[in-house]
């Protein structure tokens, strides 16, 4: 991995990102509209390298690992590309076309989030800073 020391680091950063996003009114609304159980699967970088976000039923819950329920959507990519993506440095359409991101399930909900990636990147950058990982911030 280019950006991470081990597989726990990215999951720590991404879960914290979503915890913060939940408290942003606009992003929380966006996540609720997604209304899906999403598994972010980075297991190509380690067996525990994944987390899930449950946006079903008007609430947003974030937890490490694969969800016990069948996910509505699975996004598989490397933890490095996930870092680029949350930093708004990866064009998601291009990444899908070039098979850097593989998707199983309906991506309709994700489309609703795509316009909010800029805002996500700002929160992500703050998250990295607060975790003491300023050096990981992509300019």
């Amino acid at each position, binding site marked *: 991995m280019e950006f991470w020391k081990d597989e726990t680091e990215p999951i720590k950063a991404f879960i914290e990102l979503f915890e913060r996003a939940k408290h942003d009114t606009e992003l929380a609304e966006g996540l609720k509209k997604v209304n899906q159980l999403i598994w972010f699967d980075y297991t190509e970088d380690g067996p525990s390298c994944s987390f899930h976000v449950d946006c079903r039923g008007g609430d947003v819950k974030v937890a490490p690992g694969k969800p016990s329920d069948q996910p509505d959507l699975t996004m598989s990519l490397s933890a490095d590309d996930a870092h680029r993506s949350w930093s708004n440095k990866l064009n*998601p359409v*291009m990444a*899908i*076309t070039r098979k850097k991101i593989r998707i199983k399930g309906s*991506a*309709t909900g994700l*489309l609703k989030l795509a316009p909010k990636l800029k805002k996500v990147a700002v929160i992500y950058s703050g998250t990295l800073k607060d975790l003491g990982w300023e050096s990981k911030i992509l300019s």
Partner: protein
Amino acid sequence: MTGNTGHFLRVDLTVDSISLFEPPPNYYTRFVGGSGLAAKLFWENGDFKADALSPESLLIFALGPFAGLRLSGASRFSAAARSPLTGHWADSSCGGNFAPELRFAGFDGILISGVARVPSILVVTDHSARIESSPELWELGVEAATASLKQRFGRSYKTLVIGPAGENLVKFACIMNDGHDAFGRAGLGAVMGSKRLKAIVLKSSNKDLLVADQAKCRELVTELNNRVKESVTLNVMKENGTAANLEGGVHLGDVPIRNFTSNFWEDMSDALTGSTLSEKYLIRGANCAFCSVACKRIVQIDEGPFAIPKGPGPEYETIAAFGSLLGSMDLAAVCKAGRVCNDLGMDTISCGATIAWVIEASEKGHIGADQSDGLKVKWGDIQTVIDELLPSIAQKRGKLGALLAEGSVAAARRIGRNSNEYTVHSKGLEAPMHDPRGGGHGLALTYSVSHRGACHVSSPMLFMEMGACYYPEIGFDYELEPLSSENKPESAVVAMTLGALENSACMCQFADREITIPEWVQLFNVVAGLDWEIDHMMKAGRRIFYLQRLINYRYGLRAKDDHLSPRLLTPAVDGAPEGIEIDFEKMKTKFYKLMDLDQISGIPSKKTLQDHNLELEADTILGE
């Protein structure tokens, strides 16, 4: 011959004659089919002096080699003629179910000239055709005429029908397939109307397509169909139609608002997007022949001023043309406006754009009460558009209806007062609902060099700038930044070549994205029995691009005409592209260099034409 049948119908309505016509076999290999083959047939058979709406004008319907193949996206077809709207070459593409049926009936297309004494229809069945007079259909809307034809011939007959707008020679009249799919652009419905041909009906008893290599073809088609079924983007379109990403488009600044005066309107994005259409009014999806994507919409609105019975719903272009472009975020109104416009037989893009222009003209005081019959339409007033404007345009009723029926460019010329500054077009064709200032600067270039005028389907540039294309085998592996000119001329060379191929093979630009370049070549080989390598295919695409350029040259177009109207080149005032300039001239100059196009005449050198086996055409233009 495989894939193709080798046979065209030649119809002369003036003398009531129908004959069989066999294009030389090498036309198929050199010009592929669809738009390319139509261009070659037009070059050989068209009267370049003829007015677009005169009896001498030639209207061509042409299939690609894959029509009838049970492959998602493979059964579109082309119509071509001199455009009454722009005065030069036009081809238009239509989905639906007509193309495979025509192939199964034994034909690769139809050439139509002359004018019928009384309103007529053309009836095509297995290896035969006849002309029938049908004056009772004249003046009927598309829906009623289609229903009447289906009642008379049977539901399984496929139909191509024009509405009142085509009969009245509205310059942007369209041709509708089974009341849902359209040859929308450039006024080909008016060409059909000028021939007093109300409809073509078609039925074949055969359902087989002869291909060169049955086993390999089946294997490839299965593989591609499976990929389409698994495709992330196509599944999104299956769920929410072609407007599935309208919300994203608004945030990029791609969706035009109030005649391209704004590039951002957040509330509208949610109100008009594809998922909202699905939630509120969708009954089910619908598909073109053999396509599993089913991106078309069947909608119903039960109550309110815009109630409509179950039937065809709007795709992205119509949603934006009667929604954001006219300052409306009323999705029900958009659905109804689209339905009415289709029934009258008009292109929703040019129609919406012409109305957007007149609203701005009226707002600026450039159009007086005497020219507008006292009618004042305001942004967002879709009720008046539906009740008053659309019928007046289709009937050319009153001064305003007659004015707008000419399209925005001619109308602006008529009223003067610098109102051409806010027409939005290239070469006289109103721009579609992707604003290149936000959608991507490469799109500005491809709009300008597209032969029919501002057109988003002349090439896959829109998809390339989005990141949805990756063709390393032909040098397209750029990671394009939409709001920049970097690598855009190089990309446009690939885009225009591929676009020429797609429109000639008559493949759908959505489903197409799942096919790699080597698979494209393989498809041609296993279906049409060609012996192509990638280079042969790309050369055919380039050849078609050059030939259509030569046709426009014969109509008087030059390099200066490869341009965009001022609004599209004025930096956006809001949204993501705010303040960003498009480096248009630099991109165009480089594109011209890469394509060996002369910076004045706009056509390639004799040597390039010869290199692309266009010797005879070169001689016609440049002398022996």
